[in-house]
């Protein structure tokens, strides 16, 4: 059995190339769902899901509708200008409330929601970024028995976000992008 039901990836400034590499490295048979939360512009037409979708390997990235049921072997991208929450029956709930950490979607909001629904079955991955979103959410995931990886700040284009996450969560695993790729490529 897979060690996780969900791998949640949070990223901000400087994270998109790494997210692309991570998705390409996923084994095609992965049994978990991947949920990506990126800080993005609001009210601008965006094709980020297509940018991240690689046709050759068939990693199709999908922006879920409200109340869509989370499926294994699927990659989801938080829609722009909404917070992405998870209901107890494992479907998505969108939320258009106030910005959190100047962001909507906020990584904290999704991580906290995942922690309460999935407990130990979540792996959180936090990448490069310029604010401290994700640190509190990662704390919630760890304290509910989940696992966490933080991109080594020395390898991040913007170190503030991984650094803030590590200050709050010193037990999180610190890995370079290559290390994260290796970790994910052997996790099915």
């Amino acid at each position, binding site marked *: 059995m897979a060690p996780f039901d969900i791998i949640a990836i949070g990223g901000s400034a400087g994270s998109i190339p790494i997210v692309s590499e991570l998705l390409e490295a996923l084994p095609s048979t992965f049994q978990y769902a991947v949920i990506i939360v990126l800080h993005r512009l609001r*009210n601008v037409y965006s094709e980020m899901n297509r940018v991240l979708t690689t046709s050759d390997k068939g990693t199709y990235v999908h922006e*879920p*509708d409200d*109340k869509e049921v989370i499926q294994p072997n699927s990659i989801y991208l938080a829609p722009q200008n909404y917070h992405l929450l998870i*209901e107890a029956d494992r479907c998505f709930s*969108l939320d*258009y409330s106030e910005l959190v950490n100047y962001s909507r979607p906020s990584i904290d909001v999704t991580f906290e*929601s995942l922690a309460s629904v999935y407990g130990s079955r979540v792996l959180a991955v936090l990448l490069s970024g310029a604010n401290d979103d994700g640190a*509190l959410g990662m704390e919630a995931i760890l304290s509910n028995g989940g696992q966490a990886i933080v991109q080594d700040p020395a390898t991040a284009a913007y170190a503030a976000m991984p650094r803030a996450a590590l200050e709050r969560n010193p037990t999180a695993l610190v890995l370079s992008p290559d290390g994260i790729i290796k970790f994910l490529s052997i996790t099915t």
Partner: protein
Amino acid sequence: MMNLTQITNGEIDELISLIRHNYGYDFGDYARASFQRRVLRCMDQAGIRSFFDLKYELTNDQTFFNWFLQNLTVNVTEMFRDPMFYKSLRTTIIPILASYPTIKIWHAGCATGEEVLSMAILLQEAGLLERSRLYGTDLNPANLERARQGIVPMQYMKDYTYNYIQSGGKNDFSTYYTARYDHAIFNKELRRNIVFSQHNLVTDQVFNEFQLVCCRNVLIYFNRQLQNQVCRLLTDSLAPLGYLAIGMKESLIFTDVRQQFDVTDSVCRIYRRKT
């Protein structure tokens, strides 16, 4: 937000039943994930540490309940949110609405009214505002009070101007309002055919027949069952061949009414009632 205060599912049930019993608002079929987040956020803001204290305040202090209600529901809204939706209204929907002698539009769950103002601007620019009636409803009286004033914080006007231009707006956006200190007051003529009144989508009924119903980013706060019930109410409020607009990530797929609609714009989620 603080995630250290915890509140159990059973306590949420208890809270919902307390509010229903004492004040008549029914949050039983609200989407739990966001509802729970709102409750914790309210407790955090009010400095309430325990569920017991929350119950005590809600039971004994009507003023506190009013504040709680105002903060429990999500009141965030923007002018011309999703500019491509407004562009679609301009190019596809409004030319058809123009054929009606009187155009009636309902904004269900309008919060502080920014989307209603945006619609009034579109109708004004199409020369149709004079024979339009816009109804903005919300369950929250404080929201409606603000909506009636037509006042928007100045700090958002840069974003709104950008959205307006993206939506195909050709005018100077600043001609629609007067800047006063840190607020923008929208022109009275723009607001003359707007009526704001209280309506609760969960408990209230059909009150008129409309050519267009906008209910954008309201259904997301409901569970599937309530979404279904509310969509029936919205459908029953539409004239035959009337339009329904929901949020760009909301869907009719899980509802019984889906077969009663044709899809007019699949990206912007605009549907037309068949008969």
